[in-house]
């Protein structure tokens, strides 16, 4: 009896894997219906591809100077050439190539900071929310203190002491950004730990790390994912700002913020120097926000149902109209 029933269970578990693919396909279908979300996802995928394959796509090395072609305008001007499609800067470097390479820095910094700050913040929030008492008081006061301290000042101090570099930028931004994860995680944990399934886990004999990481954390993923993506957008902007101030990425490396900063001196002669990296920043942040709002929708089961119902209602109306038209045409 028992071996057969165990087999049934194991077979059913095996079959599960296909269902996961099915779910992913469904997510894809839903994405296709949400135009804004779809545009966001396409843009982000394009940006990531651009960053990953930058050396292959970029027509020039971003640091190659060509002093004979300084401040060349984009191709649609009389003096523009296809060689430098979006023009060149004051040292004759190709703006298009620099923008493509700039994506690497922005995305890398964004991802690294979100992982670092998110990881630390979530762990602190989980401990504060679940363990409560002194741990909670300590973590929350720490967060309060750090939030009260001006972030830019802290960044300036650290950068002044250690000296600006890619790593320092990441560390500084992570130090400034983990609190929001901590706070949000804590408040979510406080509500989830009241739920009976958490109590059930405790009654069954789970120790606290298991309760936290197996029962509480998985149920926090959707709000945390949305937060992380929004934070990603903020970090992209923050990195650009730091680089613009000269505290972030240092030449000869490239960054959108750095390019805007250097371009601002030539703003009236060569508008493309500030505009093109600026647009890159804007498009990235917009795309991330589009994706975030779609994710928020999709992670709320009720909203997801409503969205679906709206689609169905629309589809049925179309079908009805089509059938009416057909009837009208028939005789």
């Amino acid at each position: 009896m028992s071996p057969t029933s165990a087999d049934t269970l194991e077979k059913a578990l095996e079959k599960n894997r296909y269902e996961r693919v099915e779910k992913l396909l469904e997510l894809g279908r839903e994405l296709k219906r949400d135009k804004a979300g779809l545009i966001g996802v396409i843009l982000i995928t394009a940006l990531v591809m651009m960053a990953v394959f930058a050396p292959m796509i970029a027509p020039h090395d971003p640091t190659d100077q060509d002093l004979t072609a300084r401040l060349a305008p984009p191709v649609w001007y009389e003096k523009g050439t296809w060689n430098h499609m979006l023009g060149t800067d004051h040292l004759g470097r190709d703006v298009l190539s620099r923008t493509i390479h700039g994506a690497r820095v922005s995305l890398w910094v964004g991802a690294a900071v979100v992982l670092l700050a998110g990881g630390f913040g979530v762990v602190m929030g989980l401990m504060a929310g679940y363990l409560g008492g002194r741990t909670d008081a300590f973590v929350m006061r720490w967060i309060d203190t750090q939030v009260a301290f001006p972030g830019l000042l802290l960044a300036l101090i650290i950068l002044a002491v250690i000296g600006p570099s890619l790593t320092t930028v990441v560390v500084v931004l992570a130090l400034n950004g983990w609190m929001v994860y901590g706070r949000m995680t804590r408040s979510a944990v406080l509500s989830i730990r009241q739920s009976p399934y958490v109590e059930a886990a405790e009654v069954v004999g789970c120790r606290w790390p298991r309760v936290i990481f197996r029962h509480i954390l998985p149920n926090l993923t959707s709000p945390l994912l949305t937060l992380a993506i929004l934070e990603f957008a903020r970090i992209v902007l923050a990195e650009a700002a730091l680089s613009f101030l000269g505290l972030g990425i240092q030449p000869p490396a490239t960054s959108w913020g750095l390019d805007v900063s250097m371009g601002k001196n030539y703003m009236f002669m060569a508008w493309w120097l500030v505009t093109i990296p600026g647009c890159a920043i804007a498009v990235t942040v917009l795309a991330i926000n589009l994706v975030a709002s779609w994710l928020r929708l999709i992670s709320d089961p009720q909203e997801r149902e409503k969205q679906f119902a709206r689609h169905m209602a629309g589809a049925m109306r179309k079908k009805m109209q089509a059938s009416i038209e057909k009837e009208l045409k028939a005789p």
Partner: protein
Amino acid sequence: MNDNQNTPLLEVRNLVVNFYTRGGVVQASRGVSFQVGHGQTLGIVGESGSGKSVAVQAVMGLISNPGRIEGGDIFFMGQSLLDPAGRKFVRKVRGKDIAMIFQDPMTSLNPVFTIGTQITEVLRHHLGMNRDQARKRAMDLLGLVDINAPEKRLKQYPYEMSGGMRQRVMIAMALACEPRLIIADEPTTALDVTIQAQILELLADLQQRLAVSVILITHDLGVVAQLCHRVAVMYAGRIVEVGDADQVFASPVHPYTKGLIRATPRLDVVTERMVSIDGVPPDLISPPQGCAFSPRCDQAENACLRPQTLTPLGDDRHVSCWCAIKGDTR
């Protein structure tokens, strides 16, 4: 209950409500018809997912987005509530002539206003009373639902009251505009049993004194037995049996009604073991062909796969069961 007028107060005819979910189309109401006469109390009994709430939500115009009314009609005093031409009539009727009492009074009372503000608001809006008139009427209403010291209560906020007291306030608000029909959706489910007994007594008393019609939605047959003249039993989005309450309880015809009555624990009869109905309620995305109860029914036969309608059995009883119609198994 004698009906003097020919048209029933409320008539629901072949109501079809579908919910469009990602899992499929949930057929919450699959052709529900019932009538409520003047001064009559109708109990609609069913388990969760039977569509009992959906039917009255359609009456109150509370079916929204994933749900759509896709068939049938609802008439109040002979006029359609679903006809887009009669919007003005509908707006006047809902909230004034038809009032609703919900399961959880805490969520239907606004926590930031006092009880007094909330009741007088209704009176001033619907009946155009001035402040003093409304206040006086509000006190009368609280007295009507047996709330002591109404003057003091009017100044209280919902959180300062117990569940039973809040439900009394909800009833008072429902009575504010002297409605002809009160819809009570599981009015006592969230309350303790002894408080439930108090509220049921109050409802029965008010119904008789004010001669108002009541639709009572509940999952508890005992509550119906206490309060209702007629009873409609719902299963899987359909009414399976409807008739005079005394008769339905005394001699149920549909196997589901029989099972439900047997499964309701009685304190006045000793039984060895609790009686259950085997199986689980069907999935309304793909309900069984024909009689939805047939997979759980011990009398089921091939005939049960044919589509069914409510069939009169005389004495105002209607049943949708092939076996019952064939043999009248009373």
